């Protein structure tokens, strides 16, 4: 079923595809996070903004990825094979997911803590950066994990319209009847997703050392 000798002989195709796959999946996570934090902040601060942002995010999230990959060139004026389409589409999904995460995470910061920070003389911007954002990290990282894992899985859909990454080994393997190639694509994608998920869990533990301390002490 799986021909293990296929891997070394195709290493020079696999490695660049792996790199391309990661770039296409992770660049949108970074872009999405940068855009979603201010939007989520606004959504948490103002009810009307939330009433617009959250449903719009939900609506964007319902559009199938293949559809977005195909429609974006018409909207952006790019070529259909341009990887920019994939990056933009996945960034849209990431923003749609994280706006809600950021808003919910900020809303979950105890009001007393924010009030105490204000009472000690924090100005809003500094309070956001030093109190509210750190305290919302656990929920934010949970959102980042979902975005990262789904993005890594979704890049493969791009292969259907000829955009690189590991998905190519699935479509190409299917076209040639090469099971090893299909499995190689699937397995590498799953491994990548699990590795980056674990990495985010680890980063989460490092940046929020206060989480779970109370439970351990008991």
């Amino acid at each position, binding site marked *: 079923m799986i021909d293990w000798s296929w891997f070394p002989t195709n290493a020079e195709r696999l490695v660049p595809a792996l790199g391309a796959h990661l770039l296409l999946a992770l660049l949108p996570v970074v872009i999405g996070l940068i855009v979603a934090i201010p939007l989520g902040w606004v959504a948490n601060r103002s009810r009307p903004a939330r009433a617009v942002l959250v449903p719009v995010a939900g*609506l964007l*999230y*319902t*559009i*199938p*990825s*293949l*559809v977005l990959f*195909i*429609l974006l*060139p*018409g*909207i952006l*004026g790019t070529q*259909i094979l341009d990887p920019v389409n994939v990056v933009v589409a996945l960034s849209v*999904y990431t923003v749609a*997911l994280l706006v*809600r*995460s950021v808003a*919910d995470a900020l*809303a*979950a910061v105890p009001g007393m803590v924010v009030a105490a920070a204000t009472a000690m003389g924090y100005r809003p911007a500094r309070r956001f950066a030093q109190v509210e954002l750190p305290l919302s990290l656990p929920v934010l990282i949970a959102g980042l994990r*979902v975005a990262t*894992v*789904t993005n*890594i*899985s*979704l890049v*493969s*859909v791009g*292969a*259907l*319209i000829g955009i690189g990454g590991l*998905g190519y080994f*699935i*479509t190409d*393997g*299917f076209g040639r*009847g090469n*099971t090893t190639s*299909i*499995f190689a*694509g*699937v397995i590498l*994608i*799953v491994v990548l*997703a*699990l590795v980056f*998920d674990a990495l985010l869990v680890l980063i989460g533990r490092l940046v929020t050392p206060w989480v779970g301390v109370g439970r351990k002490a008991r």
Partner: protein
Amino acid sequence: MGALLADVAAWFGDSANWTGAAGVPNRVLEHLQYSIVPILLALLIAVPIGAAVGHSGRGGFLVVGVANGMRSLPELGVLTILVTFMSVGLLPVTIALLILAIPPLLAGTYAGVSNVDRAVVDAARGMGMTEPEILTKVELPNALPLIIGGLRTATLQVIATAAIAAFVGVDGLGRILFSGLAVRDYTRMAAGALLIAVLALLADAALAALQRLIVSPGLRTSTSSRRRAVVAPAQPEQLPQSRSTTPEPELARS
């Protein structure tokens, strides 16, 4: 972009695209047919299991683990592998879509049932409800928002992935898209993509309407807080139990 819009509009205006096996109505029907069976099967499988696990409180880590693991599986890969081993046909597509639909429904039902306030369950038991009564009269009605949330995610995913299924040889709306791709006819691809997006949005809207219809108004926090502000302006006392924020049901997409 203007030219493209005109082309796509012209495509929709062409009556040839609306008749026969390759016409839009038939493709929509096919697409629905591919989608509905796995969704119904997933409901039959996932809701009882999620409810049982949520009610008993045992095996929750397994449900969460399975649901999270499934999210990292590329749908295209699952579909391709199944077709490779089972030959082209509806069966592998149905199985692949079923595999996609189960995790969000399972996670939604589990989260919904296990998140019902323990005090509410305690009160139900203390008043003399039997375990099946607690599950059907208290836990499931309260879990409905999250169950339907899971159903909405599952439906979106199935409709989206059913489009991908055209790549492995079945029809549906994905056929319009891939036949366009084969001859580099971008207009046809865009038209197919639009149809899929509209179908997904309509299905989601229909389920949202269903949710409004069958979920108790008492569980709609936004409504209740609005009404509360109108009907009872002065409430000196705090609500005793802090409403736990509803956790995100399994989010996944394709």
